């Protein structure tokens, strides 16, 4: 009897026991074999508990900064799935600012379409900077973070554009995502 119980315990230990909600969804809604990706909180759950993807993001508001240094402003939005294909944040740098720069951080779930952001001169349409991996970023918590830092000129307007990369989108079936964008204007002072 004891040997049978030991045998059962040893055999059972070879089958991973993963409770519903133990993991966040991976790229392209990846989950353990018997689970699916919940569309609301991006957790791998039993199919009976899964909810469809929803996102009700408002358009990104313009940031007519009046101060040369701002506290980080966090905005959220949605791309695709009935929402816009790309979002744009308008940023105006006050004329009085000296040696200004912008720090932008984009965060989005790993489960859906990867996003990218670019900083564009609103006047000329020229690209000023593209995003890159954030320094010291943890890469295993279900979110992807992209960072962008660039010098900006005083009395100029810029556009920060957020759009899907077009890759890893479940063959087009999950070409959508939610995101959070943290924006901060930094300056050494005002004239």
């Amino acid at each position, binding site marked *: 009897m004891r040997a049978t119980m030991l045998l059962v315990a*040893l*055999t059972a*230990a*070879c*089958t*991973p*026991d*993963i*409770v519903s*909600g*133990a*993991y*966040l*969804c*991976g*790229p392209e809604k*990846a*989950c*353990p*074999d018997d689970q699916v990706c919940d569309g609301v909180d991006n*957790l*791998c759950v039993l199919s009976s508990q899964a909810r469809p993807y929803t996102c009700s993001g408002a358009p990104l508001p313009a940031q007519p900064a009046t101060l040369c240094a701002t506290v980080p402003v966090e905005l959220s939005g949605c791309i695709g799935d009935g929402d816009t294909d790309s979002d744009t944040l308008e940023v105006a740098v006050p004329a009085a600012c000296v040696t200004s720069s912008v720090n932008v951080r984009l965060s989005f779930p*790993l*489960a859906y379409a990867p996003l990218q952001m670019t900083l564009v001169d609103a006047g000329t349409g020229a690209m000023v900077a593209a995003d890159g991996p954030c320094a010291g970023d943890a890469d*295993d*918590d*279900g979110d992807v973070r992209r960072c962008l830092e660039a010098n900006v000129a005083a009395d100029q307007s810029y556009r920060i554009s957020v759009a899907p990369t077009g890759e890893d989108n479940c063959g087009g079936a999950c070409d959508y995502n939610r995101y959070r964008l943290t924006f901060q204007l930094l300056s050494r002072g005002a004239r």
Partner: protein
Amino acid sequence: MFRTRYVAVALLVAGFVGQAQAERKIEIVTRPERSLGNRLLLAGLAGGGALVGGLGVYFHLESREASNAVASDTATGKAWTADRQANMENAGDNRTRAAIAYGVGGGLVIAAIVAAVLTEPAAETTVIIPRGPAPTIAPAEGGAVLGGRWSF
């Protein structure tokens, strides 16, 4: 009365002589050794079973390690990545290999045991009856007749 006593003594002596003859019958049981081929067969089956069983233990431990790497009964706060998926598939593959190895190894060990029982050489019994002289005594009218018999 006197005659009756003689007969009783004669029967008693005859009984002792018969029992002595039965005790002198020698039985020798011999068990022949297994042939070299048979021993090699049994050793091959048992050794092969142990080897394949050991392989099963190896796959079992590999499967457990891969399984433990992804198993969780609480929220991990981590994403399901390709590495974790590979671990899960690895656990399943090694579990199958372990089950096959245990089955084959166990089958070989059982085959070795069955073969050992079936090919057990039969015991040979040799009975030796001593051919020396044996005394005989029989009751007779007015007494008893004492004699002996032997073969030559």
